[in-house]
């Protein structure tokens, strides 16, 4: 595990502190909200160094994993429209729809472009005026401001052939919905670093003030995650839930006001379907009416159909922290990274993909 040159703390010291604190606690359950944390905890080896009574459960912070089946199916349908080129982040390509995936559609000859940035899609639209570009705009608050800026750029350039299909989602409403459901024995939250760059750490106040949960905002490096976990364990030990920000170099209380005002300018909050969680009020972003001509649903009459889970798929429980992947009957058998059934196995940040790739050797931490 890398030790930073600017030695804030020694990781060994942090691990020891976590272990010592946890000796004085019963089982504690921390939710790693963000898929990037899930992967980082495995990759870095941090997970395997944690005491057995510190359970880490996954949260709904994987944009691809929480995208509803209806959205995927609408995207696949869109590839059949005349002159349409679908542009998407790479993660969406292999998510299975009701019939096939974007990857299989591409193999059948559908025009699908992988983008690192939504600006790649803007460039494509500018260079291919005979094509109608639909961008699959998914992601949380880290990514939504980029989409807002892209729509403003499309407006500035008066692009006639660029639309987005918004699947953007918001983190706090989802956490609120999970806590409101009442049957989640979560003691604390490891909060996502880059969402927090945008929304600011103040955005999580209700988790402490209303729900009395321990909270720590962290980046994705091992020292960051260890500092946050130590902070959470200490809060629990002392019975003092509060919000700590160990990623102060990047995260402020108020967040990135340019990004937030971009969102306000371009999007409205909307009730949105989360995979297997149903509709969560005001948890998603839809384009404002004034930007309707950049809305793929309006331009092409696309409808987002009902949610649908492949038989036996338990991704919904996984993303709510109710199930560890190995406890799903399909895990490692019918559902593998090579032949995924649900989005948690497909996505680079999916919990099931992380457990599958890193194997039992690194999952020991936190399992009773």
């Amino acid at each position, binding site marked *: 595990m*890398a030790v*930073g*040159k*600017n030695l804030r703390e020694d990781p060994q010291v942090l691990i020891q502190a976590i272990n010592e604190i946890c000796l004085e606690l019963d089982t504690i359950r921390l939710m790693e909200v*963000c*898929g*990037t944390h899930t992967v*980082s905890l495995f*990759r*870095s080896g941090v997970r395997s160094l944690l005491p057995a009574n510190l359970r880490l459960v996954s949260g709904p*912070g*994987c*944009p*691809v994993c929480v995208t509803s089946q209806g959205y995927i199916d609408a995207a696949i349908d869109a590839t059949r429209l005349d002159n349409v080129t679908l542009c998407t*982040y790479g*993660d969406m390509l292999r998510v299975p729809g009701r019939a096939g995936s974007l990857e299989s559609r591409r193999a059948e000859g559908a025009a699908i472009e992988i983008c*690192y*940035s*939504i*600006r*790649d899609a803007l460039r494509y639209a500018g260079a291919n005026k005979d094509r109608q570009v639909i961008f699959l705009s998914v*992601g*949380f608050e*880290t*990514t939504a*401001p*980029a989409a807002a*800026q892209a729509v403003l*750029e499309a407006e*500035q350039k008066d692009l006639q052939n660029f639309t987005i299909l918004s699947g953007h989602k918001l983190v706090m409403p989802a956490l609120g919905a999970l806590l409101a459901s009442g049957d989640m024995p979560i003691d604390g939250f490891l909060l*996502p*670093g*880059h*969402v927090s*760059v*945008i929304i600011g750490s103040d955005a999580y106040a209700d988790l402490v003030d209303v729900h009395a949960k321990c909270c720590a905002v962290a*980046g*994705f*490096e*091992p020292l960051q995650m260890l500092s946050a976990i130590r902070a959470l364990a200490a809060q629990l030990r002392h019975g003092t839930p509060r919000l700590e920000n160990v990623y102060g*170099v*990047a995260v402020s209380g108020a967040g*990135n006001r*340019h*990004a937030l005002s*971009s969102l306000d300018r371009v999007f409205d909050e909307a009730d949105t379907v989360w995979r297997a969680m149903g509709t969560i009020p005001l948890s998603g972003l839809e384009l404002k009416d004034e930007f309707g001509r950049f809305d793929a649903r309006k331009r092409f009459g696309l409808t987002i159909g009902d949610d649908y889970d492949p038989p036996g798929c338990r991704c919904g429980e996984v993303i709510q922290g109710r199930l560890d992947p190995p406890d799903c009957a399909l895990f490692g058998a019918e559902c593998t990274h090579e032949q995924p059934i649900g989005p948690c196995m497909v*996505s*680079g*940040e999916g919990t099931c993909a992380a457990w599958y790739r890193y194997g039992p050797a690194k999952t020991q931490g936190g399992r009773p």
Partner: protein
Amino acid sequence: MCLAVPGKIVSRAPDGADLPLGTVDFQGSRVEVSFALVPDAAVGDWVLVHAGFAITLLDEAEARETWHYLEEAGLVESFPESDS
């Protein structure tokens, strides 16, 4: 998907240009980045970049630590090279 990578700004369109674009260097890979969300970013600053947009300034020491971790963890893929 929330991965954001630190890099150093090596060029920026002048004020008054249509779009606040520039080039960020990621340990040798140069990529066009929008500074719409961090409009005060200047050449020589380090920024965290997510999906083609800078999302915050970062100090150099922190940026280098983050880069080392990403490299060791194999989380940094090769960036699409900019045409510019």
